[in-house]
Structure formats: structure tokens, C-alpha cells
């Protein structure tokens, strides 16, 4: 008797928890569990045909096709925010210096490259959580390095536009904006005015003439980031970047895309 109400009462709880997950895989598995509980509920409602069908479809097949859809086997999953010249959308393709490097790297590893655009702040987060293999998109090496950032492959500088960033004090300037760069572009070119610190590639794209610009003197660089548990991938990537540097290919690519 209690069991009947317990199962029914658990259903909204499990569904709510499953749908409020941040990771897609967790949500999918949660919904698989929900389907299983639902099948038990159907049994309690004296509907055995429905219970059987729901169990096999919800718990097995639906979960299977979702997992197949988001699986990353055979792929090099890159998360990045757009950065003009480095990694940007053009039509339905992605082009840029970093994209070319990563594409060649993926081919070198025998994998397909897949790029997912996420907000700048989320790149390191997602790589840390293991949801992607490599983070890219004009990432500027922060002073503290908890994750495995590669050595910078290209020098850059930081610019603050629109006046001094408030509340900075002695903290080193960092690229930090909310949301996607595409939104920022539109917002800036419409004339919105919060002071913001950007790297060179992005700065060139959103700069508006006659605006106060402060160039920070420290030398910074663009890097890729790899998760802490993927040290072999990190080693491979560093080795590949070194290889590009030595053969002069990196310079050729830089000249083609950036200069």
C-alpha cells in the first residue's frame, strides 16, 4: 500500500532532478531511471502491457539513442567561444587559425573534429568536467594554472576599452565577459558601454573609434586547455604544437589567418 504511493510520489522528484542536471549524460540516465520507475507505476495501475512496453522503450531504447547521439567515440571534442581569425563561424563551417591547428591535430590522431560553441567562461569549466577534450577559442593563459594549459602558441596582449574596469585594483587583467562573443559583438557595435578587457583578436573586432583604450603591458599568449586527467592528450598536443613550430608550419598558418 505504501509502495503504491511511494512509487508515484518519487516520479516527479526523479524527473525534476534528472532535468535540472547540468551534464547531458546525467540527464539522460536520470530519465532512463524515471522510465523504469514509471513502468513499475503502470504495474501498480493494473496495466501490464503498458508497463512492459514502457520499460523496454523508455529505459532501454530511448536511453540508447540519446547516448548514441551524444557519444564522443572517434571524435575530438573541442569547446570554444568564437574569436575572429582564430575560430569563428562562417556559414555552417568553422574557420580560423586554431580550428586549422585542431583539425590537423585530430587527423593526426585519427579522429573527427567536432567544435561546440559555448560562452567563454564555460570553456575551462566544461573541459574540467570532462565534457570536452580540448578547450580553445582565443583562451588567454590565466596567472594560476589549475588545468593543463599548453604553452602559448601565439603572443597576444590585453586591452581594456571603455574606461578602466571597476573593482580591479591589483588583480591582473583577464579576459572575462558573460555569454557568447557573438552577443558581445552586437552589443558593442550598438554602442553599449561597460568597460571590458579583451584579447587582441576580439578587441580588433569590437573596437569602436574614439573610445578610450588601455593596453596592458604584460605579454600574454593564446593557449589551448586540456583536462587534468588527460595528460597523454596534453603531451600529444604539446608535441604536435612543437612539431608545427619546428617545421615553420605554425608561422605559415599565423601569417595566413591572423596577419
Amino acid at each position, binding site marked *: 500500500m505504501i509502495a503504491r504511493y511511494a512509487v508515484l510520489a518519487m516520479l516527479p522528484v526523479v524527473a525534476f532532478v534528472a532535468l535540472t542536471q547540468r551534464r547531458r549524460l546525467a540527464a539522460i540516465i536520470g530519465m532512463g531511471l524515471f522510465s523504469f520507475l514509471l513502468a513499475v507505476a503502470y504495474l501498480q495501475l493494473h496495466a501490464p502491457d503498458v508497463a512492459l*512496453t514502457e520499460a523496454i522503450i523508455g529505459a532501454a*531504447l530511448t536511453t540508447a539513442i540519446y547516448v548514441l547521439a551524444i557519444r564522443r567515440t572517434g571524435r575530438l571534442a573541442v569547446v570554444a567561444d568564437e574569436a575572429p581569425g582564430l575560430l569563428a563561424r562562417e556559414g555552417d563551417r568553422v574557420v580560423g587559425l586554431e580550428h586549422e591547428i585542431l583539425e590537423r591535430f585530430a587527423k593526426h590522431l585519427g579522429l573527427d573534429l567536432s567544435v561546440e560553441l559555448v560562452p567563454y567562461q564555460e570553456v575551462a569549466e566544461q573541459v574540467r568536467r570532462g565534457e570536452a577534450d580540448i578547450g580553445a577559442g582565443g583562451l588567454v593563459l590565466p596567472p594560476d594554472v589549475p588545468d593543463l594549459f599548453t604553452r602559448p602558441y601565439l603572443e597576444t596582449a590585453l586591452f581594456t576599452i571603455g574606461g578602466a574596469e571597476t573593482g580591479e585594483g591589483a588583480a591582473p587583467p583577464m579576459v572575462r565577459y558573460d555569454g557568447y562573443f557573438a552577443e558581445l559583438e552586437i552589443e558593442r557595435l550598438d554602442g553599449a558601454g561597460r568597460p571590458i578587457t579583451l584579447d587582441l583578436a576580439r578587441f580588433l573586432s569590437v573596437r569602436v573609434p574614439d573610445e578610450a583604450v588601455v593596453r596592458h603591458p604584460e605579454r600574454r599568449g593564446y593557449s589551448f586547455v586540456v583536462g587534468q586527467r588527460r595528460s597523454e592528450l596534453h603531451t600529444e598536443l604539446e608535441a604536435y604544437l612543437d612539431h608545427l613550430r619546428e617545421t615553420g608550419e605554425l608561422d605559415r598558418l599565423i601569417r595566413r589567418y591572423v596577419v
Partner: protein
Amino acid sequence: MRFRVRPLSVLTVVAACAVVAIVLLGYHANRPDEAPYSTYVVRPVEETGAVNRVASIYLNYRLFDSVLEVLVFFVAVLGVRHYLGTRERTAVPSLAESEVVRTSSALLFPLAVLLGVYLAALGHLSPGGGFGAGVIVASGALLVSISLGMDAIERRFSLGTIEWVEQGALFLLLAATLLPLAFGRAALTDVLPKGRTGQVVSGGMIPVYNALVGVKVLAGSWLILRSFVRHRGEI
């Protein structure tokens, strides 16, 4: 959980709660004391020959509903194959990395087939039916593809064969619904003798429909799964 509280989101949640509350209150306030239950249960079993009353409904009294649902399923499978067909991997080795998973997955397939045949054949006597049967065998086949690799399977059962099976089952299903016309009866009626209640061979056309629907759903689900396994794309 970290949410950025946006006014529109809050409004959505509040509105949804209000609608849910209103529906629930309305239902409980106006629910009749004696709900209008259907009378399918009290009909004599000799009308259909099916002890499972649910099967008697969707494979006899309301057969047209099931046939059209199968048609919708067919169209959905067509859609999946069309849109996923353009980017397929040429070679799909086994998806599982561990030996244990590979071995044990293949062992479950015969069980799945047995279960599917049982459900389809005895769908008129106990819970089951063609829909569940087809899906169970298809997921068993997915296990085999995890274990042996899609290429090994498709060497044995090529894509063309599966397509023929699917379309053949659909054609036979539609033909079976029109069969009574040859006997001077209306379409969709059950023309086979009902037999003795409780036997496996009884229930008129119901086991036939169960089998045909089972095969159709099996082939269609397998085609969907196969397209997903072979797809090389990005999410």
C-alpha cells in the same frame, strides 16, 4: 544549482503551477462518482478469441488505430534514415572497449529473441503484444552490434534485406486488413476462426497481426538504431 533568475522564467514557472493547480482542482471537483468505464471487458471472449482484453481492443475492435500507428512509425523511420543517411562512418568496429561487455552483450540476444517470440505469439493470452516484442528484439540486436560491431551484422543481414523485411511486413499488414473483402465481409474484420479460448492457436487474426506488427516494429527500430550507430557527426 546555479540559476540566473530571469523574470520571464519565473513567470513561466508560476503560470505552469497555476495551470496545473487549476486542472487538478477541476478534475477532483467534477469527477463523477461512477466514472464512464468502457464495456469491452464484459463482452464475451468468443467475439474475439483473445483472453487479453487489451489485445482484443487494439487488434480487433480498434484495428484501424493500430494500422495507422504503424504507418506513422514507418514514416518516422523514413525520416530518420533520410536525415542521418548523409554522414555515415564507413567502418564501425565494436563500440564496447571491454572484453566482458562484449561477451556478455552477445549472450543476451537469444534471450531477447525468445522473449520477443513469446510476447508476439501469446499476445492474445497474456500481456505483451507485437509492439513490445519487436522493440525487445531490436534492442537485443543493438546489444549484438555493441558486442560484434555493426559491420559484422550487416555482412550477414544487409541493409537491403532489412528494408525488404520492413516493407514486406507493412505490405502484408495492409493486405491482411483488406483480406476480408475477398470473403464478402467488410475490411478490417477478423475472418479466421476463433478457436478454443486459451489455446495458443486461437484468437483469429490476432496472432497474425501481432506477428506482422512485431516484425515491422523490429525492422523499423533496427533501422533507426543502425542509423544512430553509424552516424558520425557532432553534438
